């Protein structure tokens, strides 16, 4: 029948007419073809070639910069892109091509359809070059002393030491190659694949001990990590989902490090052997999504399940022939850790002024690694007790509710409450509960001023008591491990901006945080972090940018200990104070065709360790590091295509570190050290290059 249907249609249609949904309908008003639009469909970019000169290859300076020596270097860069009207494109970038920090990248594809990339990067991490070792075979898994090496009781009793010492560089090189493909299917689907291989080789330092004697050894690094990331995403009008797989496979070419024992020690172990980091693999599947059914309500979340596995065959419990074979309960660990991480956030505008947010999270590390007892052999010297391994697991869950309220057009206030529960296995504490609160005020009292003040409180309490583990020798029963202990955290943040004009602005950022481990008599008892940053920037027009900043940070930690295995009888304070200031100017068209720039920074770090113990009020020598660095450049454009550039770098660095300064290999009776020294240099570097633009 027609008449009853009309009765439905009329009110339905009237509802639609008054519905704001109709007001928000987009107009279809595609503009006409644009003749004034300066589209660029030709390849463009630049190639650059030049020479660099480095005065001195000090590791602290060359660290990450790609220099492996001093002197002259050829260097180059390239940046080319070609984009076509139909959306196809390709680009090629290369930077520092003549240095050990070189990088290159190729990107190509068609916008909105497919994208492909290939990236390559090298990174050099130079640590020390004044190091010495008495061992040969550096870079291998076997470090040997000379055939006629005479072992001694202490480092002072090694007659062959001076002759045997040779200089070695401690450095790591990392090479990363990654490639990926992304393509879109229609308006909704996208698929993404990425593969990265990360290769490291080099040497770093580690201690190899025999009870109360040790030698600092050059440990070889030779490993490779393969990472796979695949994902598929679906984008709808009001929601989106993404399913992603991540796989990471670590492969260590080194299984162990064996070294000759330079000392005479009880038990007479001729050599020692330490296990290298085992091969491991991690696989994870993650589903993430977001929805926004209305402009006033949205949510997003993810859930990720993963598994870590490691089944590297064990090396023997000892290689000391006088101890004989020591049985193992299994041939490999067969370790398995299952992870689950889930987070959800909901945000909604309850009214035009009030925004509410609710967040929840769950983070689980479920360690299913088998537990067995392993006969310990103390540093290859003596049979010791059976020890059970502890496969640590934890569950962390919680949430936060917060509200933001627009008090006025210029002032917002916020408040929130959060709760977290953490549960542990094999540790001194079964669980902790943390309550957190915050209050925040953001205000713009004038057009030129913004101010933000945030107060935060966090109280963590142990649930069920602190039970020291049964180990020998035991821990002081008054010790509280700070990551598990009762803790009160207070934090205040004040930040602001003042816009003196459209060209000149000032900023302030300050934080004070205090962690009070209120029930800890032994261990970390309190920590404080204070930071203030002031900065200003000036940019009157496109041709001039200038900035200046100052930062002060103080990090203080208080630790208490007991030599009498009872109440605290010594106290220490570690105080790091860092002051930094810097600035820069970039000026274009200072004179026609000339651009000049300067950046400089000065960082002054001072670390003070004070001990109040049997000898009261002792202060160890200060740890000092001063770094002043500046870069000055000028670029002159001869024409639209050609420009020449001159760069000058100067860096002054002076470090004083009593832990290593003046420490010859035989300074300590018990440890054959590696002769590290703190860097102290003033280095100049100059670069000149020509750039051709097209």
């Amino acid at each position: 029948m027609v008449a009853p249907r009309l009765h439905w249609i009329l009110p339905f249609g009237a509802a639609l007419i008054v519905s704001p949904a109709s007001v928000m309908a987009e107009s279809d008003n595609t503009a006409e073809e644009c003749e004034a639009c300066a589209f660029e469909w030709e390849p463009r970019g630049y190639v650059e070639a030049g020479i660099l000169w480095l005065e001195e290859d000090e590791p602290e300076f060359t660290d990450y910069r790609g220099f492996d020596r001093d002197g002259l270097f050829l260097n180059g860069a390239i940046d080319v892109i070609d984009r076509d009207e139909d959306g196809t494109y390709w680009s090629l970038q290369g930077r520092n091509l003549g240095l050990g920090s070189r990088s290159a990248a190729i990107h190509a594809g068609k916008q909105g359809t497919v994208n492909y990339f290939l990236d390559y990067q090298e990174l050099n991490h130079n640590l020390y070059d004044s190091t010495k070792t008495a061992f040969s075979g550096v870079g291998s898994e076997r470090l040997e002393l000379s055939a006629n090496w005479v072992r001694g009781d202490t480092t002072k009793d090694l007659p062959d030491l001076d002759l045997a010492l040779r200089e070695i560089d401690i450095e790591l090189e990392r090479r990363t190659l990654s490639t990926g493909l992304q393509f879109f299917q229609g308006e909704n689907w996208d698929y993404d694949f990425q593969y990265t291989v990360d290769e490291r080789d080099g040497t770093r330092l580690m201690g190899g001990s025999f009870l109360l004697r040790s030698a600092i050894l050059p440990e070889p690094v030779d490993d490779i990590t393969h990472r796979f990331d695949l994902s598929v995403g679906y984008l709808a009008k009001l929601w989106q989902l993404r399913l992603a797989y991540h796989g990471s496979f670590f492969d260590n070419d080194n299984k162990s490090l064996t070294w000759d024992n330079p000392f005479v020690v009880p038990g007479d172990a001729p050599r020692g052997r330490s296990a290298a980091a085992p091969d491991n693999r991690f696989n994870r599947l993650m589903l993430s999504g977001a929805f926004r059914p209305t402009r006033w309500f949205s949510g997003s979340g993810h859930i990720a399940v993963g598994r870590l596995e490691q089944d590297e065959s064990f090396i023997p419990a000892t290689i000391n022939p006088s101890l004989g074979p020591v049985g193992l309960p299994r041939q490999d660990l067969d370790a398995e850790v299952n992870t689950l991480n889930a987070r959800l956030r909901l945000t909604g505008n309850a009214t035009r002024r009030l925004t509410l947010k609710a967040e929840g999270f769950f983070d689980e590390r479920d360690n299913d690694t088998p537990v067995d007892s392993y006969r310990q052999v103390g540093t290859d010297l003596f049979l010791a007790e059976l020890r059970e391994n502890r496969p640590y697991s934890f569950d962390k869950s919680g949430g936060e509710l917060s509200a933001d309220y627009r008090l006025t057009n210029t002032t917002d206030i916020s408040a929130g409450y959060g709760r977290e529960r953490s549960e542990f296995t094999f540790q001194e504490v079964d669980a902790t509960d943390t309550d957190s609160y915050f209050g925040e005020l953001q205000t713009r009292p004038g057009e030129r001023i913004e101010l933000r003040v945030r107060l935060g409180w966090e109280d963590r309490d142990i649930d069920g008591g602190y039970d020291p583990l049964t180990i020998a020798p035991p821990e002081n029963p008054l010790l509280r491990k700070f990551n598990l202990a009762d803790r009160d955290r207070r934090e205040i943040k004040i930040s602001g901006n003042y816009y003196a004009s459209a060209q000149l602005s000032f900023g302030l950022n300050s934080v004070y945080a205090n962690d009070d481990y209120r029930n800890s008599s032994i261990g970390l008892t309190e920590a404080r972090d204070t930071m203030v940053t002031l900065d200003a920037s000036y940019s009157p027009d496109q041709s001039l940018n200038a900035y200046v900043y100052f930062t002060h940070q103080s990090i203080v930690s208080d630790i208490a200990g007991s030599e009498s295995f009872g109440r605290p009888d010594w106290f220490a304070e570690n105080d790091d104070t860092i002051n930094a200031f810097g600035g820069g100017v970039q000026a274009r068209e200072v004179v026609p065709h000339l651009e000049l720039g300067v950046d400089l920074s000065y960082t002054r770090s001072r670390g003070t360790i004070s001990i109040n113990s049997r000898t009261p009020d002792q202060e160890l020598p200060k740890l000092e590091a001063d770094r002043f660095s500046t870069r000055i450049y000028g670029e002159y454009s001869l024409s639209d295509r050609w420009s020449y550039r001159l760069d000058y770098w100067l860096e002054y660095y002076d470090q004083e570190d009593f832990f290593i300064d003046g420490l010859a290999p035989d300074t300590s009776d018990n440890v054959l050290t590696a002769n590290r020294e703190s860097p102290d240099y003033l280095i100049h570097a100059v670069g000149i290059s020509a750039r051709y633009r097209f």
Partner: protein
Amino acid sequence: MIRIGDQKQGYRPRLILAGVIVLFGWFSGGIEGMAQDEADSTPEYTEKGAETCLACHDESGEVPVMDIFKTPHAVPGDARTPFAKNQCESCHGPGADHAKRLRFNQERPPIPAFGDSALWSGEKQNGICLDCHQRNQRMHWDGGPHQRQGVACVDCHQVHVSEDPVTVSRQEANVCADCHRNVQVQSHQMSSHPIRFGDMACSDCHQPHGSLNPAILKEPTLNDSCYSCHAEKRGPFLWEHAPVPDDCTNCHSPHGSNHPALLKQRPPLLCQSCHSRAGHPSISRTSNDLPGGRASPFLIGGSCVNCHSKVHGSNHPSGANLSR
């Protein structure tokens, strides 16, 4: 015969249904759609699009805009891009009012979005970007710290340049440092990640568009972020060091530190924060332990790690005390 009462009852459900539809439309469209304060009722686009805008905003303009034609935004062949739709007005909003001929002494009305005295709110301007750029990386923008603090897309991104600095790895940290100067300064300390040379970008670890964890990290957990590059620390090991799988920042300060290996403190005090076993772990180390005195290995050199070198865990059967 039809009773009047029956007819009234028959209309009620339809009226209720119509009311529900109106309310749903209200929330779907948003109350803001009817608000007057943004003055966007009946906005009009220009007739000629970019031709109109470029008549004033050309190479000689106060604010350079032409470099946008070198960017992916200006590819008409890609139907998703602004220049395949309403060109400049796709992002800046309908500009007929802004571009119209003015009467004597009349002030030019501002453009709705992304200009001096723009009419639309920051959130609405962000929405313009998010309409297209909402996939994947921007999935968790809502409710994240940058969104809550009112950070606008244009606070970090520049659209009218051939290369947006924040998308260039070696320049990204300079953009972040505008607000996070203290973090940039930390990268100048004695020990740091290779941020200040551009070999590592902030976005290698962080997701500035928002993520679900407090530090807006890309990975689900902090440790997963570290293991991306430091997989040798991941284990699982036969003998684990409990604070390691819990949280790397128990001991490390990832942005920079006055101590080697980005440590918050040096051994022995770092270790004595958690260890006070009878014997050498509980002894205080003083100036008597320096090279001029006892030259104690418990203080100088690597201190505790002179012997206990496998602090991240050991897979050696006899490695329970992390010495092998």
